[in-house]
């Protein structure tokens, strides 16, 4: 290859170089050939198939939106008809069957006994309302109430509590026959020793062990 003059390579003028001219002739076949410029790439006028595809693409959402509007209208109409039908429905007659929710409509089994209701009926001769006329509580059968127990609400009660004096209470206390009074001289029963002052609560009384001796007792 010969030396290429710089001026021809730069300006393309002057005495040409053989190899540059050969390269220009060979590579010039790959040069750009202007084509029609499509500035609007989305315009489908030039391509009918593309235009048809675009029409389908545009029509599809329209069709679906139309279908959905029809569907919504149908649902609304059905709901309106249902509401009118419910509103115009004639009132139904009360059924013979008892309302399972109402407990008063249930037949009471004869096996069930309401002790309070029957007692109230027996005592008062009629139905009583639990609020205005509370049924009297039956006494608890077989239940012994300790006389030492005091009713803390007795003061506010209408009936005064008859408290048993401690002397009488001790007298009525049952004494086991096996117990013997070690300080008793004869078979004659003696009065129990004087109890403590009445201001002491009865719960404070303790049974004295027989082994303990009272140093102040008189033999």
């Amino acid at each position: 290859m010969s030396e290429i003059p710089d001026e021809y390579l730069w300006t393309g003028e002057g005495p040409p170089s053989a190899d540059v001219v050969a390269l220009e002739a060979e590579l010039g076949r790959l040069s750009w050939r202007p084509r029609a410029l499509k500035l609007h790439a989305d315009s489908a006028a030039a391509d009918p198939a593309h235009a048809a595809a675009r029409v389908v693409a545009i029509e599809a959402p329209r069709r679906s939106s139309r279908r959905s509007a029809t569907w919504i209208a149908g649902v609304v109409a059905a709901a309106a008809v249902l509401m009118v039908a419910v509103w115009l429905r004639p009132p139904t007659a009360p059924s013979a069957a008892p309302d399972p929710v109402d407990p008063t409509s249930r037949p009471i089994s004869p096996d069930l006994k309401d002790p309070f209701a029957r007692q109230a009926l027996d005592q008062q001769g009629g139905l009583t309302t639990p609020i205005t006329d509370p049924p009297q509580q039956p006494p608890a059968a077989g239940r012994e109430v300790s006389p030492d127990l005091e009713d803390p609400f007795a003061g506010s009660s209408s009936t005064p509590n008859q408290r048993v004096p401690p002397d009488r209470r001790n007298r009525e206390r049952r004494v086991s026959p096996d117990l013997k009074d070690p300080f008793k001289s004869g078979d004659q029963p003696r009065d129990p020793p004087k109890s403590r002052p009445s201001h002491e609560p009865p719960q404070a009384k303790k049974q004295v062990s027989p082994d303990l001796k009272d140093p102040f007792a008189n033999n």
Partner: protein
Amino acid sequence: MAIATAPMPVTERRPAWVAVVESAKHGDEAAFERLYVEFGSMVHGLLLARVDRASADDLTQEVFLRAWQRLANLHDPIAWPAWLATIARNAAVDQLRRAPQPGTLPPEAQLPATRSDDAGIRSEAEQLLQIIRELPHAHAEPLILRLVEGLSGPEIAQRTGLRPAYVRVNLHRGMKLLRARLHGRVNDNEGVGT
């Protein structure tokens, strides 16, 4: 890229295409078509330095379409050549990043043709183009614009927005490298023949 680092300074004398760019910015399609005719070869040459010929033809249209859509972003019309060249280079890079398809493989990925199928598969022009592509982009671009697109040195500088001296240096260095490659190729062929 080294080319993009040497933009042409704004000269006092405004080129003729500046008014055309102004008209195109206001929606004048005819003015933009004039720009397309005038700068199409530059865009095609820049694309050809990176992608194959079929892709370059299609991408040239795409580059001008992008430029038309983004023309409002171009504030100074004097920057139109460099702006358009940047769009072209980015379009080529985007094309190479896509999934490899037949005809869109990057030039570096294409297998070099063997001596036996030179005449059958590739034309002489495509072989020469492939040799130029293997050069650095700073040399390949002005060489392709000069030898393929037929632009002179000053035209290359004006249409790419690069300094004329920068283009001249790279054009002559690229030509020197191309000569060396072609000379070595001839020597290889002679060595095989003997």
